């Protein structure tokens, strides 16, 4: 029934667990996966003009490196399970918007994500990005706990 699962990751432990289960689920139903990592944009602060531009570039580079690590974990997991896998790196300050847009662009029919990520309060509330994706997505969302 589901053919293409989007697996957003923020590199947190819970999202790693969701990825594992997501790949397992994809394997069991013969679906492919797309891994997605969304990192914040770099904003120069206009009142601190002496911040060197290369600090921003450095931060951007660091985010990209981290994202590559997180996405490589998805590729590895999928590779081991024999699940077809693509990865996407996005820069956006509203991860949920990027998640929904990428899901639509890539034609995903399911978004599978952890109930909490980095900002989450374990077991108390639903993570803020997951909550926003659930609220705004027209594509089914599977929340992994």
């Amino acid at each position, binding site marked *: *029934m*589901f053919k293409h699962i989007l697996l957003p990751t923020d590199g947190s432990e819970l999202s790693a667990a969701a990825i594992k289960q997501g790949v397992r689920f994809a*394997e069991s139903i013969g679906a492919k996966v797309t891994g997605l990592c969304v990192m914040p944009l770099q904003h120069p602060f206009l009142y601190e003009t002496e911040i060197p531009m290369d600090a921003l570039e450095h931060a951007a580079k660091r985010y990209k490196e981290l994202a590559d690590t997180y996405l490589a974990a998805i590729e590895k997991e999928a590779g081991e399970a024999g699940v077809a896998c693509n990865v996407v790196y996005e820069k956006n300050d509203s991860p949920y918007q990027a998640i929904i847009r990428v899901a639509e662009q890539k034609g995903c029919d399911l978004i599978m994500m952890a109930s909490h990520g980095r900002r989450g309060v374990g077991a108390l509330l639903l993570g803020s990005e997951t909550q926003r994706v*659930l*609220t705004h997505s027209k594509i*089914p969302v599977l929340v992994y706990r």
Partner: protein
Amino acid sequence: MFKHILLPTDGSNLSQVAIQKGVQLAKSIKAKITGISVMPEQKYYLYQTDIIVQVREETVKQHKLQAHRNLSAIEKAAQETGVPCETVCEISDHPYETIIRAAEKRGCDLIMMASHGQRGVKGLLLGS
């Protein structure tokens, strides 16, 4: 991977759609399903004791009928696709608690429900 899907229903249109999708998913992954309908508790109001008993009986009857209708829709969808199906009717003022408890009690490994039900404001917010 998922073996037992819980399908909560409140009889709303959106939950009907979710049921169809849930049964479809269950079929494609060879899982069984349990349908659940949670109906509100009837509280006694201490004033107006005369009308209460009668009204209460009537609403309980109506709720049971409604739950039965909701659940038979699940049974029908499951039967048509050949998915093993059980149904449960529970009474509670906090459906979410009852849904989670039922899922745990029955060993469900996935809860599949619509984003909105009867109380929902479509497309604006997630159902409560």
